[in-house]
């Protein structure tokens, strides 16, 4: 994934800083770098779900490591976004078990409904449809990940409902708002 130079407002709130200190305290004082992945998750969640280079530099400072140590990690793991993403990113699992239960067709349906190609963001910045590899929900296929949660046993109607709920502001990405 290419790097974005889009501007990102950086805001490490007291609440976030407190959470980061808690995470860092889980590792021995001379092994602060170990907290990098959990710290990046929290920081990304608090910054519109992506990590600009300046934000990665801030993280490096927090953990007393070199910026390159953060960049190489961010670029390795697929959950870290190096460029802006939509508010609601529908990540469809498309690996075998979901594929044989119709995930590819359902993803096409969702793209058509939103009028986007895979990976594109809708002009209002709300939606994006992405195909990802196995999410460990094989028995509940087809499914997608949205924020911290999985939406499983999907069909056209459930996808329609989910889109409507997102539009109505009823979906909190980090709190369970709708089951399945």
């Amino acid at each position: 994934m290419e790097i974005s130079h889009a501007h990102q407002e950086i805001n490490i709130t007291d609440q976030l800083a407190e959470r980061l200190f808690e995470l860092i305290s889980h590792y021995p004082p001379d092994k602060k770098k170990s907290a990098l992945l959990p710290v990046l998750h929290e920081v990304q969640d608090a910054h519109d779900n992506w990590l600009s280079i300046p934000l990665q530099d801030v993280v490096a400072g927090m953990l007393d490591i070199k910026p390159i140590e953060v960049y190489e990690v961010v670029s390795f793991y697929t959950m870290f976004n190096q460029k802006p993403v939509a508010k609601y990113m529908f990540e469809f699992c498309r690996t075998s078990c979901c594929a044989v239960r119709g995930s590819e067709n359902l993803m096409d349906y969702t793209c058509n409904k939103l009028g986007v190609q895979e990976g594109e963001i809708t002009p209002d910045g709300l939606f994006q449809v992405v195909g990802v590899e196995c999410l460990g929900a094989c028995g509940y296929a087809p499914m997608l990940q949205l924020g911290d949660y999985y939406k499983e046993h999907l069909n056209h109607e459930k996808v329609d409902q989910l889109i409507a709920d997102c539009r109505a502001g009823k979906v909190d990405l980090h709190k369970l708002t709708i089951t399945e």
Partner: protein
Amino acid sequence: MGQKILLEHANVPGIKTYEVYRREGGYRSVEKALKSMTPDEVVEEVKTSGLRGRGGAGFPTGMKWSFIDKKSGKPRHLVCNADESEPGTFKDRYLMEYIPHLLIEGMITSSYALGCNLSYIYIRGEYMWVYRILETAIKEAYAAGWLGKNILGTGWDLDLHVHCGAGAYICGEETALIESLEGKRGNPRIKPPFPAVSGLWANPTVVNNVESIAVVPWIVNNTGAEYAKIGIGRSTGTKLISASGHCKKPGVYEIELGLSVDEFMNSDQYLGGMMDDRPLKALVPGGSSVPILPAHLIFKNAEGGDRLMSYESLSEGGFASGSMLGSGGFIVYNDTTCVVRNTWNFSRFYHHESCGQCSPCREGTGWMEKVLHRIENGHGREEDIDLLWDIQRKIEGNTICPLGDAAAWPVAAAIRHFRDEFEYHVRFPEKIKSRDHFVAEPFEQVKHLVERQPVI
């Protein structure tokens, strides 16, 4: 029938909370181990149980524990591998989501056996809500005095934390997991040194699957000898199987090892047969990495003996006619499945997940994906099939970690058992234009075309 060990209390309302878990007899193994057993006695019980690693490789857990370096005097660590990412596998998630304290109890008892004072659960980043469930459960365990300083007044301290990954299958490989836990890219390490000697922060480390650790409390409470009575031969105990694909009742099941594949597949207690009663075409019994089995080798082995759900029985016949129990990711395919498309799907997965350190894997997985993609999309050539065979053979055994093998085996097995389907794709490109080509016209109905066509 069918003893439940891990899921014994799964249906008790509120079992997720500390109070209910404790009321149902939770944390007894910690009391028993700390008050009446030495760490080595716990290790012995696990050895006696015959428990084999539930992550996929099936290496005896007790033996793995006995390798940990206790002489160097360095701090030791137990790391639980909850990075569950093998396509077809979702059993650990079920355990952690519904009975989180079982894993935590197992971590405490196992850490005691290994003499650890700082242990971690490494969970895949996508399971974020499960991460929060575990965080809450760990806080409850601290509050109740099962974690922290001077546990049960024995003078033994243990800190346990949960650490999240960020979307990398390779971090399920134990040395890549350790790298990731150190805040680095998930590149597997060259072994030796093994983690038992030099693991997390160069300290002696044991990495065990969730299911392996979660069964330790039962073994400590009931003895290893009792555990060894369950199961068949060297496949002792119970195993969680995650079933998916075209079966009637996908989900997570706990079975006694030794159950027949037929009963698991067709009885109402388990999968209840095939979805929409369509014919069974193929089975991947142990997660995407293990060889796919064609219908005639699923319920019977090549000699005609019953195929059982056990490490030994599923691998009878080697790769020529067998497969592996692996992680227990049981993927069922009916006659509408295109094996070529499915193999391409798996190859795309491995290409995406290859860490890129070793050339055979980095280049080979991408090459296989490309060739399979063109065959599936009607641009394949007759010689592509042999080319694929050649590529997979050159990946297998030539990489630092087993991801290379895992990428090679599904391709090899697909060609071995379903070569005619590849030939059909190459020779009749106009018939495979739609993604769902075998939904409209299952391969069984068009198979004769391949047989009639002379090979030029």
